[in-house]
């Protein structure tokens, strides 16, 4: 009982600290002059360096989704609707979620490890003694970079996934390319793309804030940094998956009523 009490208390404390970090970051966004050099480097690190991971994930997800959909739809003679399913799924769900998860694994872990190491070697304290707010210098550029890069990576993932699904459908499964393409365009709405991109912006914020929080408040020593890195990936991934469900409901409701 005591264990659960302590666990809940620590969980609530963590959530409170994360909220305060988000509040401080928001305040910094409105008052602080952005260091473009840092922002550019972070965008390069988050966006350009994540391309291969995201593209491979998008391509193979599109391919396997295309093949699996075809196997089911072929039974009811709906082969040409295969790419429409791939497209809608990639746009509104799989594109943003898988990109978010891959970026959480790659970038979220790197952020937590870097900031965690800075904390245990007193580099964050050194920043503070140099009259620099750690949130201004460490959190804001990473948050902005992830907000900007994740929708772009998601868009790439969606396009590559659909193209990969198309190639599998046409060249491996022998589906008529014209019907496949026309049906895809017919059943994919603008709102599906919008949902995916809005989700990506939000997932970018989740990865940045949790990564920064876990790094800046990590425990002492190598063990503390290791734990912070693991927790950053696990918590970011879980938060992405849970928030995705609610975002689907809320954004679906809003965008479909427009």
């Amino acid at each position, binding site marked *: 009982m005591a264990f659960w009490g302590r666990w809940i208390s620590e969980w609530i404390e963590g959530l409170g600290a994360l909220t305060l970090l988000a509040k401080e970051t928001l305040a910094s966004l409105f008052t602080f002059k952005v260091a473009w050099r840092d922002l550019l480097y972070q965008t390069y690190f988050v966006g350009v360096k994540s391309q291969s991971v995201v593209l491979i994930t998008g391509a193979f997800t599109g391919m396997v989704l295309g093949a699996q959909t075809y196997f089911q739809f072929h039974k009811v003679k709906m082969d040409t609707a295969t790419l429409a399913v791939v497209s809608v799924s990639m746009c509104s769900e799989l594109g943003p979620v898988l990109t978010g998860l891959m970026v959480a694994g790659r970038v979220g872990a790197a952020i937590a490890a870097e900031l965690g190491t800075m904390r245990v070697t007193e580099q964050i*304290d050194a920043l503070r003694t*140099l009259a620099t707010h750690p949130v201004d210098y460490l959190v804001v550029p990473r948050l902005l970079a992830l907000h900007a890069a994740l929708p772009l990576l998601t868009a790439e993932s969606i396009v590559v996934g659909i193209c990969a699904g198309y190639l599998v459908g046409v060249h491996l499964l022998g589906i008529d390319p014209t019907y496949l393409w026309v049906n895809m365009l017919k059943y994919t709405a603008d709102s599906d793309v919008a949902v995916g991109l809005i989700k990506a912006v939000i997932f970018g914020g989740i990865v940045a804030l949790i990564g920064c929080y876990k790094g800046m408040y990590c425990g002492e020593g190598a063990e503390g940094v290791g734990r912070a890195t693991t927790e950053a990936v696990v918590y970011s991934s879980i938060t992405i998956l849970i928030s995705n469900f609610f975002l689907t409901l809320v954004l679906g409701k809003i965008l479909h009523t427009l």
Partner: protein
Amino acid sequence: MIEVCDLEKSFGSHKILEGVSFKIDKGESVVIIGRSGGGKSVLLKHLIALLKPDAGRVLIDGEDIVPMNERQLLRVRRKFGMLFQGAALFDSMTVAENIGFAFRRDRTLPEDEIARKVAHVLELVDLPGIEAKNPSELSGGMRKRVGLARAIVYEPQIVLYDEPTTGLDPIASDSIDHLILRVRDRLDVTSVVVTHDMRSARRLGQRIMMLHEKRIYATGTAEEIFSSKDPIVKQFVEGTADPTIATEI
């Protein structure tokens, strides 16, 4: 200049500081000694509000910094420079970028002026021409010198030194001591040094305070402390192990 009143600090149930009070005047050079793990670094970090006390006040030029938030503290911290125990250099930056960090953040000085200030301060710490090196290429002593250069380049009024000679060989320790004295004399700064190196303490301290059992146990000039008859002070200064501890080992 610095006034600490009834400072208390605990980590969990472990009380580190209790009722700590002292004053440090402008231009004074004070050394805080005490056993490892006794709270010296914790006390030092309270002076620049890197840690918040559970109770008590820390006044810098008459202004209580305890209730200030992180953003309000940025202004107060401009008065300080701090040399950390492990130097705490930013390992993703070169020596020049480390030293000129805050100038670049402020964006008030042109690049050539920053480069000139960096070169000047590197000469002051006897490390000219190493601007392009990375911290990983430097020895422990060199890292501390660069850390000191970074701390003093903004010409602070107060410089805090956290165990400046720990982990260095006697010759490197000696040169760091001389450097601290040179900085004190040339820049006319208030110095607060935390150390358990008695040779450094004797050399650097116009006044020495001994932290023991969570409080300032003794205070006096170097001569007074080193000739003290108090058994606890004497034992620490002479570096004699507690016989009861020796028996346990």
